[in-house]
């Protein structure tokens, strides 16, 4: 009898509460229009197989033997796979880790990476964002048996919050790492002080990525939501580029070389776009250094002085940069440039979208970026796609691009010289 009273009470309370809730609905909501059921939380991805075709982001790299490696995540699991036929087929993927808490940072500018090392070992990096926290942790894992097994992932740092790591490897095997670091921002917050953006931090490894030393924030106030890019200078020192928050909340770009001791950055502002904005562009720069030591950089801006996708070079290691040159067709929303410098040529590719079709135009330069061939479309899709990445093997240059409809594609660049 008691239970039935409870049921009756519950039913009455339900009806009453529902009426009360109805009257509480705000008149300001604009919920009309799109009449669809509420979104299920954690809806399964359209494709959940552990293969590159199912990844939102893919990072490619060729090893010294000419084998293509890719790092990618599907859901909460990180994989690597290799291809001996230029991406047509892949080996069975090696699972590196499945997260029990949080997510793998693999969206837009953020993605896991694989770095083939000189001794034929492999280093993998990825960033996690825990469920209840906004900051990330960068992890690395190493394989010394051709990608069959990886070591237990180790955090680069265990506090502060890090994202957007990038790596370069010198001919002697030293690995340089750079990333955006929220440690100083967290300290400022704890002290009740304001702090714009992230720090820019660096470290190096002489044991093939097992340990990193000299972890240090060398500059503050980088834009925290855009990738950092890295390239190896002619003198064996790494060059990095990122979006910096200058005085007045101006989010323009900065490029700098790490000093020999790893304790100083030597470089300068890339351009005065004057993009004064309190926002996240979600689009970091591309960087390449050519055989003559010239720095090449491409970036996106909506500044007062210029808007769109741009390219410039520096012949004096960041002291000055050439006048920014516009890339792509503004009518097709050019974005997400990628640069690659080989011994003979410089390449650039980017993404364009005309409202229906996404294309990847590309150009090459044989005179260090002074002049470029006519843009040539390398690939297209009518569905979702990853950012384009240019990657070099011993013999060739390729566009690496994952698209929802066509899957993963590795396309050799066959560009007309003019």
């Amino acid at each position: 009898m008691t239970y039935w009273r409870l049921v009756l009470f519950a039913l009455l309370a339900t009806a009453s509460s529902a009426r009360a809730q109805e009257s509480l609905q705000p008149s300001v909501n604009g919920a009309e229009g799109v009449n669809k059921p509420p979104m299920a939380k954690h809806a399964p991805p359209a494709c959940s197989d552990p293969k590159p075709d199912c990844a939102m982001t893919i990072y490619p790299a060729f090893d010294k033997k000419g084998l293509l490696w890719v790092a990618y995540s599907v859901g909460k699991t990180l994989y690597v796979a290799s291809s001996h036929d230029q991406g047509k087929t892949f080996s069975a993927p090696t699972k590196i880790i499945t997260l029990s808490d949080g997510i793998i940072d693999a969206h837009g500018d953020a993605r896991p990476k694989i770095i083939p090392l000189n001794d034929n070992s492999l280093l993998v990096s990825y960033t996690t964002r825990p469920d209840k926290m906004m900051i990330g942790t960068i992890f690395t894992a190493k394989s010394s048996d051709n990608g069959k097994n990886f070591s237990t992932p180790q955090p680069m740092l265990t506090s502060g919050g890090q994202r957007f790591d990038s790596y370069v490897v010198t001919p002697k095997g030293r690995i340089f790492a750079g990333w955006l670091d929220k440690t100083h921002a967290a300290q400022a917050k704890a002290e009740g002080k304001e702090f714009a953006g992230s720090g820019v931090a660096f470290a190096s490894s002489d044991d093939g990525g097992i340990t990193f030393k000299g972890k240090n924030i060398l500059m503050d106030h980088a834009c925290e939501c855009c990738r950092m890019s890295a390239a190896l200078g002619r003198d064996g020192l790494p060059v990095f580029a990122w979006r910096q928050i200058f005085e007045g909340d101006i989010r323009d770009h900065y490029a700098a070389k790490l000093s020999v001791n790893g304790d100083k950055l030597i470089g300068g502002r890339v351009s005065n776009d004057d993009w004064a904005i309190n926002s996240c562009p979600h689009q970091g720069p591309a960087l390449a250094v050519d055989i003559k030591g010239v720095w090449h950089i491409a970036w996106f801006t909506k500044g007062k002085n210029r808007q769109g996708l741009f390219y410039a070079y520096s012949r004096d290691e960041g002291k000055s940069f050439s006048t920014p040159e516009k890339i792509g067709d503004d009518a097709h929303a050019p974005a997400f440039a990628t640069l690659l410098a080989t011994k003979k040529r410089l390449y650039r590719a980017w993404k364009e979208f005309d409202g229906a079709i996404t294309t990847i135009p590309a150009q090459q330069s044989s005179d260090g970026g002074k002049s470029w061939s006519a843009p040539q479309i390398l690939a297209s899709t009518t569905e979702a796609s990853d950012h384009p990445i240019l990657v070099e093997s011993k013999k060739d240059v390729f566009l690496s691009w994952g698209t929802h409809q066509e899957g993963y594609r590795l396309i050799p660049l066959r560009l007309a010289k003019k």
Partner: protein
Amino acid sequence: MPRFRSFPYTLSLTLLSFILMIGTGRSLEFKPYGRGDFDQIAHLREQRARIIHYWSVTCPACIAELGQWAKFINDHRDMDIIFINTDDDEDRERAAARLEKNGLSQATHYGFSDSFVEKLYYEADKNWRGELPFTVLISANAPRVSVTGALDDPHFVAWLSQVTSIKK
């Protein structure tokens, strides 16, 4: 006998749980937002000004101003304000937590449910590449404006001033 007792017991507990859930405010739901949805969402209702605000949990500037949006809604009850979360489903729970923490559970929310984000950006504004926060301001009495940046962005302030002054 225990079986007869267990049914009403279970039923009453279920109903009470439901009451507690709706009694403490309806749970936050994201309507799916895909290609083709922008035009419907941007359509004015009864000539009320309409603000469509895109945001993400990976955008600190977006999160920092969520509290201000709650106040803005309260101060502008004559406008329709729609929030669109641009994250993947993986981040949706933390997006919901952020909204609830900032008193925005009762607002109208959509979430990107289409991975062809370039198309979603393009439909809202041909020049939008995904930078956030991004807000589209629509009114019958003023030109449509797209603003990259926070609530205090001069373009936002100017549009609001224009729309408000026309009403007066």
